């Protein structure tokens, strides 16, 4: 039997425990700088441009003073380096600027040509930056692209646009972490969405390929789909295939939409030059086709399947030879070779990269998706 005194002591000790915990909550929350959301400004999108030799940075901040409406505030500064841009922006703002909610960093083409490594390094080492931030390259300058989204009243317009295109369109899935993985990883190169301004609105034009941290070239949105197939097990994305070799009329095309694709890589032979086999298994549905293409027999369908697959193989081979000529490796073939060979080193691979042979085999299935024939 427990005595009354023991029970009381126990109760007291519990209250003591709770008391200390509550007290500690108060104490801990009172130390450090407080950052109340109403009293700070959250940077949502940012851009870097090269202006001669100076770096111009542009940021978008949401202004939520009006009810149910976001007004976008643009701040822009110039500096000799990209390092102190935030500090310079801060001198133009009535409330302190914070990067914890930053979701997009856009690089102007000139800036990207000069190298984005130092910015990537900083984003990587800043513990307040989210790994889900997105990076993109602007075909013109980043400031123009960002300011063209002001009347959308959405500070994350470009970020949302890129995100939905990764989900439903032709862009490969990317975010800060995957981009850094490509950037730091030996045997793989960085690639980012490439945006342009068309008639005053932003448009995704394809993919920008990087050599180390410098912009090398850009490819169009169809090649973006090819890259999506080559780098990941993807969903969605579509491609238009011409049915005739030359002088095709507007109706001589077929639009197919990928439902799902699965990629596997094999090493066929190591010597003398490495041969790699990339197998892609994919299901597509035919969205649009001219009248004269009919799916009446099984042979019709398999003939079209072969034709589509051959077209995609050709596209992929062209893409890889472009990569080889620019000495960039967005697919990560070097990394694949590393995983298959002992004592691999990046320099030797770079030397053998132009002679590397990548065979593509596409196993494509047409899934009937429409109710009518």
């Amino acid at each position, binding site marked *: 039997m427990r005595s009354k005194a023991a029970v009381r002591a126990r109760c007291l000790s519990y209250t003591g425990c709770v008391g200390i915990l509550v007290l500690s909550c108060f104490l801990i929350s009172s130390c450090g700088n407080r950052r109340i959301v109403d009293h700070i400004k959250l940077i949502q999108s940012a851009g870097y441009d090269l202006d001669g030799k100076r770096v111009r940075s542009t940021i978008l901040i949401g202004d939520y003073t009006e009810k149910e409406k976001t007004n976008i505030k643009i701040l822009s500064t110039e500096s000799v380096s990209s390092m102190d841009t935030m500090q310079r922006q801060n001198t133009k703002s009535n409330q302190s600027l914070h990067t914890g909610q930053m979701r997009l960093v856009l690089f102007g083409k000139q800036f990207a040509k000069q190298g984005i490594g130092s910015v990537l390094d900083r984003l990587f080492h800043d513990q307040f930056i989210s790994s889900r931030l997105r990076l993109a390259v602007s075909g013109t300058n980043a400031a123009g692209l960002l300011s063209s989204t002001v009347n959308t009243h959405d500070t994350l317009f470009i970020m949302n646009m890129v995100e939905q295109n990764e989900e439903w369109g032709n862009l490969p899935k990317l975010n800060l972490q995957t981009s850094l*993985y490509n950037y*730091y990883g030996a045997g793989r190169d960085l690639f980012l969405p490439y945006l342009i301004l068309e008639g005053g609105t932003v448009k995704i034009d394809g993919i920008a390929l990087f050599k180390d941290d410098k912009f090398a070239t850009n490819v169009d949105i169809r090649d973006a789909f090819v890259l999506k197939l080559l780098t990941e097990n993807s969903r969605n994305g579509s491609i238009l295939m011409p049915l005739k070799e030359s002088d095709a009329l507007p109706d001589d095309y077929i639009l197919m939409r990928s439902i799902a694709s699965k990629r596997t890589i094999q090493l066929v032979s190591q010597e003398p030059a490495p041969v790699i086999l990339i197998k892609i298994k994919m299901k597509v549905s035919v969205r649009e086709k001219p009248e004269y293409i009919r799916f009446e027999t099984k042979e019709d369908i398999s003939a079209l399947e072969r034709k589509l697959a051959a077209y995609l193989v050709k596209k992929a081979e062209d893409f890889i030879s472009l990569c080889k000529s620019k000495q960039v490796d967005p697919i990560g073939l070097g990394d694949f070779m590393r995983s298959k060979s002992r004592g691999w080193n990046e320099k030797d691979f770079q030397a053998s990269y132009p002679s590397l042979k990548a065979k593509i085999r596409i196993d494509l299935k047409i899934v009937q998706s429409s109710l009518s024939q």
Partner: protein
Amino acid sequence: MSNAISEKFTVSPIHLFFIMYVSIVDISILSFQREVAMDAGQDAWVSILLVWLSSHILVWMMFKILSNQNPVNADFVSINYAYFGKFLGACMNQAIILYFVLTAFVMYRIYLEAILVLIFPTMSLWPISLVFIVLIYYAVSGGFQTVAGLCFWAFFIIVILFPPLLVLLIPFLHPQNLLPFFDHSPMQILKSSHQMALNFYGAEVLLGIYPYIQTQAKSQKWAHIAIGSAALMFLVAMVVALLYFGQDQLHHLVWPTLKAIGMLELPLFQRLEYLVLSVWLLKTLASVGVGLWISCHSLKKLWRTKPSNNLVVILLLFIILQLFIKDPEQIITAKMLHTNIGVYFAYIYIPIVFIITMVRKKFSKG
């Protein structure tokens, strides 16, 4: 010799599992990957397996040592007195107690440093450390059962936090990073195993708490399960870091586990690493508690002082140490000192005592 220790102070054998698990899985689970992968690269998992195996052998040795003692006196204080004589034994006891104090201090200080670096860079450390020290006093003065109970909750936190988060990370992993297998020389693997051993300490708490476990014969399996599950956790954390970052990115990272968790987003939680680090307070409290409880009780045996007074003295020592160990370099020096002593303690002291025990047993029989 007195009879068995009263039931008021002992815990059932399953608690040995919680205490050992919590002592081994400390804050280094959030940060050990870089050092271990530095030499062995993608083969770092091999070194974890090696350390795992060696830890099982150490636990087996410890149980052999402890089960050959009088159950009430089966702790390192009595063993050192019996094996090394009064003077040398006392010296060794004091050194070991200092080691446990240092363990507790390093855990406490590194946790505070993590908060400072990752959550509140501009915060002054004193308010939070004073609250923490009061909490530690409260936990340890509650006795062994309180500390064991805390360990249970700390284990519970680790189990509900980590496995779901690691599962959520699966879509972001690159299995190719583990290939090719065994691309490193045995020397590199050994170097990385040494690094791993520096991060995988804590099993030695067994030498301090053994008398307070009920039905000691049944407790050995719990100790082995604790080693096994803790090592599995380290292994999973290592493999996830390798597959998520790749070696090249991992070389730049101090807190790989936290950085990887930062990728995840749950409804209402955009930045999970803050949640993990905040809840980790309870975990740190538990492991600091175990270390300090052992120190206080061993001091009581050594000098016949009151444990609560010992605790106050040790916590004052914490405050003094905190005055001197301020910047990250000093913390790393303290950590290196502590982990190196820990490795010698585990891999030299325990085998020597094991051999002495076996020899004595043979002679007393013969």
